[in-house]
């Protein structure tokens, strides 16, 4: 089955070039120039992979990834940016960004067509987890602190209600 890829970048010329590169490789591609469009497409379709620009107006690539994972926890992800410090090795980018969310791969702009295709092929060849716990963990990856805070807040609310 043809793999389905969503590409999100606010630069249309970049978006077009990525779309062409992946279409030529035989992938089915969807494109979006902002986060809202991307989230809408995610509600309507399921994707195997999302390629997100890191810097975008309104919502950056990692925040968008967090939201997409809520809908599609198994989606693979690549974050690309011209802003990521190129002195940092791509595999180390998530650490330099503070580890609050983790994409499956990071690429520096300007990435070559060969490197992009290799990264896409490599991620799509990975077996998807079938363990529900792994899937659940992946869905909330980067939001653990929110869950922890929510638990604490609900506990406090209960105490307050009791006092009233």
């Amino acid at each position: 089955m043809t793999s389905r890829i969503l590409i999100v970048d606010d630069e249309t010329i970049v978006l077009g070039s990525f779309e062409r590169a992946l279409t030529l490789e035989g992938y089915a591609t969807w494109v979006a120039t902002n986060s809202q469009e991307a989230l809408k497409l995610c509600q309507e379709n399921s994707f195997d992979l999302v390629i997100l620009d890191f810097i975008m107006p309104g919502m950056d690539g990692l925040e968008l990834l967090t939201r997409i994972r809520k809908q599609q926890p198994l989606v693979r992800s690549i974050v690309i940016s011209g802003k990521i410090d190129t002195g940092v090795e791509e595999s180390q980018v998530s650490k330099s960004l503070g580890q609050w969310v983790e994409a499956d791969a990071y690429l520096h702009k300007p990435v070559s067509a060969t490197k992009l295709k290799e990264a896409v092929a490599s991620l799509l060849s990975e077996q998807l987890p079938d363990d529900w716990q792994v899937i659940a963990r992946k869905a909330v990856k980067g939001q653990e602190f929110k869950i922890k805070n929510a638990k604490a807040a609900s506990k406090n609310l209960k105490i307050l209600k009791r006092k009233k």
Partner: protein
Amino acid sequence: MADQPDKLTFEASAYLQTLIGRDLFRSQDLAIVELVKNSYDSGARSVRIVISLPSEKRPGSIEITDDGSGMDLSKLQQLFMVAGYSETGQGSTGGNRIPTGEKGIGRFASDRLGSRLTVETKTAGSREGIVVEIDWTLFNARKKRFNEISVPFYRRTLQFLNKGQSGTRLTITQIREEWASSTVESLRSTLSQLLNPFEKPSNFIINLDVTGSTTLSGPIVSTPIESADFDLRFKVKRGGTIERELRKTPSKSINPRLEPTVDPAATILKGLHGRIYYFLKRPAKDQVHGHSPGVFLYRDGFRIEPFGSSAADWLGIGEKRAKRAGHAHIVPSRLFGFVSISRRKHGGLKDTTSREALLDTAEARALVHLLKKGIIDFLEEQIRTGIAMPRWEESRARKATELQKARFQALNVMSSGVAHELRQPLQAIRMEAGNIATRLRQLAIDDPIIRAAARCIDTSIERIDQRIQLISALTGGKLDANERVDMALIVQEECTLLERRIQENNIDLTLEVPKDQDANVSDPLVRMVVKNMVENAVNALAEVKDGRQRRVAVGLSKKGFKHLLKVKDNAMGIPAEIQPRIFARFATDTTGGMGVGLYVCQLLLKSHGGEISFQTKDRVGSEFTATFVDEEGSID
């Protein structure tokens, strides 16, 4: 058969004692210093000098008592009674010490102080001590021979030494010159300057007591000077290399270490080191802890006269100031120097018999030249050329730095934005070039010109991106910020990043780096230089088409506070016409070759105190060496 010649022999008149004893030492202080040094050489840990000032009831005396190894009769005869014989001259002395004396005449110095000497000495193993009574006036007889004078000795129990203890006491009576408070103070000052405050001989204490005076009595102390406006430290290393560190207080320099200089004449002074302190205003007493101004010379911790005394002016500082009528920047009364030499390392720096000067040897001349030209003139230059900045100027400079920082921050924000903007079209161009290549392949069009064009676009974009990275690093100030890094790891990482290119060109890469090499340097600068040098080697090897096995060797080592990165290739070497301008901009016109990269690397390294050098041989290869200066480390 040739006649056997008759022989004549030299003999010494008894008057020789007067020459090597009484008349040899300029002052009483120096005579006492000689006797103290003898105590040190005998392994003593403590020496007590007791001066009894003459009164109506009793004549004055000087008593010098030590807890050294003492002498038995045979040692006394061999050591003490033979003029010019010194066990220390043979290099052995008590307490594993480097001997201070080697002339074998120090004991005769007591004649300078008084005409009678009583020696009481005992070794640890003997029950009784030996007492020798010497009347130096007996030696006044010029017609008598030296060995015709005999002195009585007795075996006695010594009250000042218990069983198992050893030591020597010299009691000098019939004092030649009157001792007053001022002479005792002068002696105290001489003794306090006897030991180098920065390299005091271990386990050696001197006490000077004056009977009936608590103010004049007490231990001799020598406290190091801690802070001056200028603190210059130096050391002569192999090959006449002089390492220097200059600290300025209160605004201590961030990196006090200076580029080493080489003085070939100083080669024979290897190991010599010292400190020079200079105060911009006349220092208060508590700032200099009683030290007198001057550049003092110490051998193995003991002062050599007269270097440092105001009358000596051995470095011509006073003379220079007088000639310039007050325009010189070094004022002798604000300069305090402590220069250390060693008997073992600097055998050519020998004293005159009076111990009041050095013999005029090549080493002595090199020493004076080094201190005058390499140290004092250098310090004067530093004072003159604005390290001594007035406060208002410092404040202006600080404001200018802050402004500069603000400008750089703005520039950084701007360049970061520009980098992002530039990378968008670059991304599109690169991706579309790839797309064209893919499409042509799909259409089964395999054209070498199109392939070459696609490759060219890709390489060009790579290069543009490298420049964008460099500009970002420069404007972000990242190249200026030193941090603690493992240089070995950086070299390995950068070489790993280039692995693909190295493999594509069938290059055999050898890494000769230590397991780790800690350094305080600029991380991006090291990465940039490693990357540039290895890439240059790879590019040079890519041009080699004669079938030889292409090789690159990357080596990392440390020399003092310098980190050396060597990249050696076996390519064709650098053409002779390019060599002179290899560090100039656009030295070559080849893509990815030694264009701007090497120029920028050299420029940036030099601004950090380092440099790049190279050696090359036609058709054999080249070796580039980058020197990184560590911000920390010590010249000790």
